[in-house]
């Protein structure tokens, strides 16, 4: 498991152990990856993050069109693997969790421990920084590469 926010490590490790999930990705609602487990290539994690953030944005808009609140979570059932996707609010803003699991786990187990993960993250999250550095076009690529190095350890 790799992250660019060390305080998420312990809760995410616990979630992975208890839920038996194969792959997990925590990201901001804009698709910026915060932590990942199970991905071996950076291109895969960036693609999954972009697609996950896009799906959550689409379902949020769908909920709005239907006049309801945001959907809680989305489960995509495949023949061998399932994908669980859910957005949640932290003091640092809205985050998204994407979890891939197979026959070693169940939707119920993933949902149960994901809720606990969210509660732990909410309790541990440092307050949002208002005066931090904003991403600039000239430093974007360097910052992105630094994040990818942190997420993949190379």
């Amino acid at each position: 498991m790799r992250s660019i926010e060390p305080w998420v490590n312990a809760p995410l490790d616990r979630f992975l152990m208890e839920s038996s999930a194969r792959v997990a990705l925590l990201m901001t609602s804009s698709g910026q990856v915060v932590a990942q487990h199970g991905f071996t290539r950076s291109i895969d994690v960036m693609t999954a993050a972009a697609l996950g953030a896009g799906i959550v944005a689409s379902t949020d808009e769908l909920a709005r069109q239907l006049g309801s609140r945001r959907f809680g979570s989305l489960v995509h059932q495949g023949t061998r693997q399932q994908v669980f996707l859910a957005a949640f609010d932290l003091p640092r803003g809205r985050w998204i969790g994407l979890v891939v699991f197979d026959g070693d786990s169940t939707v119920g187990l993933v949902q149960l421990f994901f809720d606990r993960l969210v509660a732990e993250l909410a309790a541990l999250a440092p307050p949002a920084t208002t005066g931090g550095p904003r991403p600039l076009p000239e430093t974007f690529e360097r910052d992105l590469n630094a994040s990818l190095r942190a997420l993949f350890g190379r």
Partner: protein
Amino acid sequence: MSGPAAVLERVCAVRGLRGAVIVSSADGLVIAESLMEGVDGRAVAALAASLMLRLRRAVEAAGRSAPAFVQLAAEQGSVLAAPAGDDLVLVAVAGPDANVGLARLELLAAARSLA
């Protein structure tokens, strides 16, 4: 085949049981529940389905058939589970004073009626 509500009512009539849940074995989600306050049906369902899945794999790896009944004894009571066909698991939460023998009989009969 009996309806879920009737099955749960029958199982929960056993003295000392704190409730029962019908769980979808494939996804660990609650199908029907009748539980006392303070018992988290969603957690019971998810964890019991996971336990049954792993136990089934373990006994099948040992060349035995899938378990028909599971009793998980703890200090403050037990969790009892019985598969109902391939798709469902019937789970009961028993307090320390429960008549586990009678609960086992009722659970097995109820699981048969659900299958």
